[in-house]
């Protein structure tokens, strides 16, 4: 059992602020809901155990994203043999969800899944989660120029995958 210096309320607040985005990032990386949940769970366990302090919620989010991405790398190595679940089964559908959303979502997920692992997080953070380039680079622990290069290559690949001008 973990005894944490953090109060339940503080962790709950951090969860509300970040969990959905972290889950989506992990889902894009791992392409599997169960593994994505494990990754987010692991990231929050580390958050609870190490009880880091932040000046802002942006810093908190950057820390959690970085840990989640690292956890995803570790899980990818350990669980390569596991088969993927159907994405429709994997995604939790909101009550307000509509068919077009489901189609669009699967199209996005399908495009991302065709990218090499290295580029997925960069695309998700910058283009889908709207993180500024510098913040996304910081969260991934790479330089701004490396991030730009990754996005450039990812765009080229997505252009072919999505067969559209981007």
């Amino acid at each position, binding site marked *: 059992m973990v005894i944490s210096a953090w109060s339940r309320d503080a962790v709950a607040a951090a*969860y509300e602020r970040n969990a*959905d985005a972290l889950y989506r990032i992990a889902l894009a990386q791992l392409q599997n809901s169960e593994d994505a949940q494990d990754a987010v769970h692991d990231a929050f366990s580390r958050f609870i155990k*190490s009880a880091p302090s932040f000046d802002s919620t942006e810093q908190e989010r950057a820390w959690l994203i970085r840990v989640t*991405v690292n956890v995803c790398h570790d899980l990818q190595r350990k669980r390569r043999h596991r088969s993927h679940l159907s994405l429709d089964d994997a995604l939790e559908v909101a009550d307000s969800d509509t068919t077009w959303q489901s189609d669009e979502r699967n199209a996005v997920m399908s495009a991302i899944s065709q990218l090499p692992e*290295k580029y997925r997080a960069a695309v998700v953070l910058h*283009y889908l989660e709207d993180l500024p380039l510098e913040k996304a680079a910081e969260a991934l622990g790479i330089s701004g120029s490396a991030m730009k290069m990754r996005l450039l290559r990812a765009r080229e690949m997505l252009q072919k995958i999505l067969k559209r001008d*981007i």
Partner: protein
Amino acid sequence: MFSDNEKKAWQSISAPASLKDKILSECEIRPKNRTLAPSGIRRFGTLAACLMIVLVLSLAILLPTNDSLSVSFNGSTLSDGSAVTYRYDGVMTLSRDSSSYSMLPFEIKGDAHVTVEGGELYRQDGESTLFCDSGSYAVRGEATLLYRIENRSDAVYAMTVKSSKESFVIEMRYDENTNSWSVLKTSKD
């Protein structure tokens, strides 16, 4: 890149509700079961506890404390802001695909709690190398820790070292061009 509809659809994906309960359950501290001892034993226990407190306080005043904390990496003491470069020669392998992993040696002096993000933490105990499965280790006095991480130029590995008086983070970045690690210590406020 993606259309507004695609972004909106993407951002509608939410974490399963069950995940929150699972995570928050880790914050709960279970109350210990308490059984009361007879009053005579309780009085003796109180007296013993008072004597113990006096003894501990006396020792704390008289004995030198182990507050100072230092971290050496591969034999060199790490100082704030100056990076140490390290090329792993693959001698200290722990089996599997050693070519893509490095084992980074740290020596911690002082009482501190060490936590890592990603990778695997090991401690040296005499001839044995023991895996710290929680990714953390409480150092009492002195310890040699080995941090096994993948040679990835796109990831930053971090080790947090916290004592009662100070706290710092050691960041490790891999340069695939030189096949070496850059290790940087930064104090936290």
